[in-house]
């Protein structure tokens, strides 16, 4: 077995939340680098946080690793470390072989130059020699699918056309390692198919690929392993399906204890604690939200919006206020508790989100606003949104269904 093409051991990277301080740290890091000091990189300074923490994996020839996780989990940071754009603060990354990235398609395009001129600039940035571009020029133009615009300035292109042209240039690379960062999100379906086919082609040719995508179908189709990243850490799954499940769990368990930040800054009333006994709801179950508040003065006749969105359904699955049911709600001064219960839910096997908004009297002020992700389970395993009784029977072939 030859050495892995990518070797990541304990790689960590920290970032700074404050711009001014970030620049100041940058100057200090620069000084430390020049003096050859590399200590104190593993300590967090004020306003810093770990964007990537202690990540390790190997990637061999022909393997594809999926990188999934919610926004801000450090996927792009990890890709940039692999690409050698930034250095890790801890651990190390070893890369063997030529590496290319489908990250910034159309990088270095100058808007006033024509598509033709930009092909040469872009190819040059990606390290493709001029000879090679000359040889493949026709191919690149045809692959881009926009031959009639090739002599127009790029600023007259749509964003999709720009990406197509950028991809056409990049697609003619044959790297040992390919990094793909969510480039498929732009472009129409025909273009996406082209991209995916190219990725499949490279994979078959033995290219090691790191693929970042929010599309779980793409991940399941192309990846051999997945690395699930989140703010808390990361986990490597040899089984892609298990990784995708873990990711879905992450994305849909967004409930945190910081109720304060969900409140509007309405003066005179503070919601300081929320009880949500259950966010996994079965058929016929109730959704219960208990809110603890502290009010300086009484808030009489408030209006409470309750809405429910369900994945896969357009618009609101359910939307109403307490006035829909003719219920008057008064919040008394001092500490109190407000309970909101939605009864007898009939959603099966989907992810959903409750939206709660509390208004003072005639909607003159928003007092509280929160979205709560929930998950509707089904009693039995099925993949649709509803479950109907169906019989299955294995026969002996006699009789059958023929006339």
């Amino acid at each position: 077995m030859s050495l892995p093409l990518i070797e990541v051991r304990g790689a960590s990277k920290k970032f700074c939340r404050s711009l001014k301080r970030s620049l100041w740290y940058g100057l200090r890091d620069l000084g430390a680098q020049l003096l050859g000091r590399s200590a104190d990189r593993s300590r967090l300074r004020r306003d810093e946080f770990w964007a990537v923490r202690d990540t390790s994996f190997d990637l061999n020839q022909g393997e594809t690793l999926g990188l999934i996780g919610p926004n801000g989990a450090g996927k792009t940071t990890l890709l940039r470390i692999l690409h050698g754009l930034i250095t890790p603060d801890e651990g190390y990354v070893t890369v063997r072989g030529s590496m290319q990235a489908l990250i910034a398609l159309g990088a270095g395009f100058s808007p006033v130059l024509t598509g033709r001129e930009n092909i040469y600039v872009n190819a040059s940035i990606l390290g493709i020699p001029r000879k090679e571009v000359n040889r493949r020029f026709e191919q690149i133009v045809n692959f881009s699918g926009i031959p009639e615009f090739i002599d127009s300035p790029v600023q007259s292109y749509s964003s999709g056309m720009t990406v197509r042209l950028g991809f056409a240039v990049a697609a003619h690379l044959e790297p040992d390692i390919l990094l793909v960062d969510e480039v498929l999100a732009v472009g129409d379906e025909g273009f996406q198919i082209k991209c995916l086919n190219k990725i499949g082609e490279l994979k078959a040719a033995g290219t090691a690929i790191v693929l970042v995508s929010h599309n779980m179908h793409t991940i399941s189709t192309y990846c051999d392993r997945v690395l699930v990243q989140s703010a808390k850490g990361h986990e490597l799954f040899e089984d892609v399906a298990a990784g995708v499940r873990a990711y879905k769990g992450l994305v849909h368990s967004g409930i945190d204890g910081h109720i304060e930040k969900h409140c509007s800054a309405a003066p005179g009333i503070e919601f300081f604690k929320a009880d949500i006994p259950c966010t996994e709801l079965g058929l016929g179950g109730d959704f219960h939200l208990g809110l603890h508040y502290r009010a300086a003065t009484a808030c009489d006749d408030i209006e409470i919006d309750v809405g429910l969105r369900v994945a896969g359904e357009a618009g609101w699955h359910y939307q109403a206020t307490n006035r829909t049911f003719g219920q008057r709600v008064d919040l008394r001064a001092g500490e109190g508790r407000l309970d909101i219960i939605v009864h007898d839910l009939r959603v099966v096997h989907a992810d959903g989100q409750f939206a709660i908004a509390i208004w003072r009297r005639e909607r003159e002020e928003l007092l509280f606003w929160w979205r709560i992700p929930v998950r509707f389970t089904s009693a039995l395993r099925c993949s649709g949104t509803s479950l109907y009784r169906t019989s299955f029977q294995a026969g002996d072939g006699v009789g059958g269904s023929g006339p």
Partner: protein
Amino acid sequence: MTHRRPLPTATYTPVSQVRSPITLISGMLADLVASRELAWRLAVRGISAQYRQSILGVFWAFVPPLLSALLFIVLQQRNVVNVPDTGMPYPLFVLVGTTLWQVFAEAVSAPLRVVTGARAILAKINFPREALILSALYETLFGFLIRGMLLAGVLLYFGTPFRPRSLLALVTIFMLIWLGLAIGLALTPVGMLVADVSQGITLALQFGFFLTPVVYPAPESFPYLLLATWNPVAPFLLSSRTLLVQGTAGPLAPMVVVGVCLVAGTCLSWLLYRVSMPIIIERISA
């Protein structure tokens, strides 16, 4: 994709690159060689984009030196400023001086301008970073070619006879450009992090114009003498001018001293640029 060839291997660690100088320097040289084509492309892109979007085109290269020269010609003729003997017609002296200064000033601001303009690709693509500096050199040389036409026109207008020795001015002007680029390169890493640097460069160039014998001859009395002797720009600028007009260079010693410092300074600035790149990229895109 069979791997019979040895795979290029790169390791990224938190350890300072300065700790392994051989790897660092060989990487710098290899990338310089690898960046030639890209540098050329970037320069062609920059120049053609600049001229394609402009109606007056090269006119803008001529205007700043012409205007400031005109100002001083008028001031001198009205005796508002008293300029000692320059050894050549004052308008010629000033026109050549301001043009040369403009070439130098452009060289100083080129590296930071080019690298800042490439922020987006720097943050996303790993290409030899030396290409940006090389393309700044190409762009400055192109700017000099354009201004060279202005210089030639001025020299012809004043009926300066052509002397083969005047061609030596190409060497001193190249040194002037190199000096400008080295100063600009040294300021680039910090300039990428904080905007104050590019403001500072603009201000320093305005002052530098007056602190350098551009519109007046090199002073010969103390303390003004220092403006010519302790100013690294002065030897090359003065010699370029006298070479072009009279075919004679100034004293060689100051040029050699500045030249030696320049070689060392360029290597250090390049090293600084190289080592600082990952840190800068981290900060400009975080």
